[in-house]
């Protein structure tokens, strides 16, 4: 018999001292030879920034394997948005992730969970990479997002150097695609 899960509740506004006392925005050292930076702003449905969100990221290593696939790389990070709704983290680009038997590879991607006051349950989205057009075109998860505009919200924008930009719109015409995980 299946047990029914415990319901989710909002993280509320007062979590910082308990959950973000340890800075996990550098998944690798900023001077790591393969380091990339990903930054963005979280917006609400009125286009206002969300200064009290917490983001968690989960990704594979460069070899496409999860969890300690490389020396000291956990693949997990978490951090808050600042007063301007801005976040930034440093990591390495994940490799393509093997699918189950007979499934195509998944394009390199990073899972992102968003928690905030006003979110009664977390939101889950994925960051894909703009220099992976071919892999993105055959990615089964991207393909499952029917609306091309919505699909395009999942691909980060290339900025200067090693910087990528991934804004998150919780609501509205520009809403980011979120997944039922």
């Amino acid at each position, binding site marked *: 018999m299946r047990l029914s*899960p415990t319901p989710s509740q*909002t993280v509320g506004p007062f979590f910082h001292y*308990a959950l973000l006392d340890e800075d996990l925005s550098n998944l690798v050292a900023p001077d790591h030879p393969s380091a990339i930076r990903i930054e963005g702003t979280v917006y609400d449905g009125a286009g206002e920034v969300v200064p009290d969100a917490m983001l968690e990221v989960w990704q594979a290593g460069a070899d496409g394997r999860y*969890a300690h696939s490389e020396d000291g790389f*956990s693949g997990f990070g978490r951090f808050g948005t600042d007063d301007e709704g801005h976040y930034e983290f440093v990591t390495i680009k994940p490799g393509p992730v093997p699918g189950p038997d007979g499934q195509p590879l998944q394009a390199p991607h990073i*899972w992102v969970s968003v928690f905030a006051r006003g979110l*009664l349950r977390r939101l889950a989205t994925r960051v894909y990479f703009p220099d992976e057009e071919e892999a993105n075109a055959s990615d089964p998860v991207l393909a499952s997002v029917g609306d091309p505009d*919505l699909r395009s919200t999942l691909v980060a924008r290339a900025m200067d150097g090693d910087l990528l930009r991934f804004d998150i719109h919780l*609501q509205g015409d520009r809403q980011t695609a979120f997944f*039922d995980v």
Partner: protein
Amino acid sequence: MAQQSSSKPTGRGRDGEADVHPPYLYPDYKATRLRAPEKPLVILPESLSEVTGPAYGHGRVGPLDHDLTRQHGGDPLGERIIITGRVLDGDGRPVRNSLIEVWQANAAGRYIHQGDQHPAPLDPNFTGAGRCLTDDEGRYRFVTVKPGAYPWGNHDNAWRPAHIHFSFFGPAFRTRLITQMYFPGDPLFDQDPIFQSVRDPKARERLISRFDLETTEPEWALGYRFDIVLDGRAATPMEH
């Protein structure tokens, strides 16, 4: 409650199960109005559900982190309580060696967070943050003081029922859960839109701890029991 909740986009129950989780948009909880997504959630191809997850926190738990009454020079004010329970997956198996984080207001209903400035005293002997790892049976135990209710600006004369925030990781990305634990018989339940956002009354009941005389320690602390079931069936196929 004057307004109807909306369940759009529905967090559907997987495999057609009724969804126990609150909807994203629950207008009585005003902060959801501009933060709830409107477009339907994208359903992942079943075979691509994320069954991996971070093994976070094993190096982060100190020996006294589970005891929120012993983090300062003296005893915090308030009613000392013990909260214990088990963390299980949907098949009833224990979730072992997994991080739990908690945070809460003090006995006067005040968070140490700088965002909480309502006129109730801080307690120099209480921070209100704790963490522990579940054991091989999925059990955990915290010692703390019972948090007070506190006012908030959601509606006229709005007060949050006493609650403790709980954060769970479990074995997979999809088992991640943040929730709130309440206390039995709280008179503030009826007017609290966060508690009421869970529409299934049976599911809502599962957010309420129960007083437990077995956990209660004589001359020392009242005991409460709070068991948790995490979503997700990992690699086990669903029975039909």
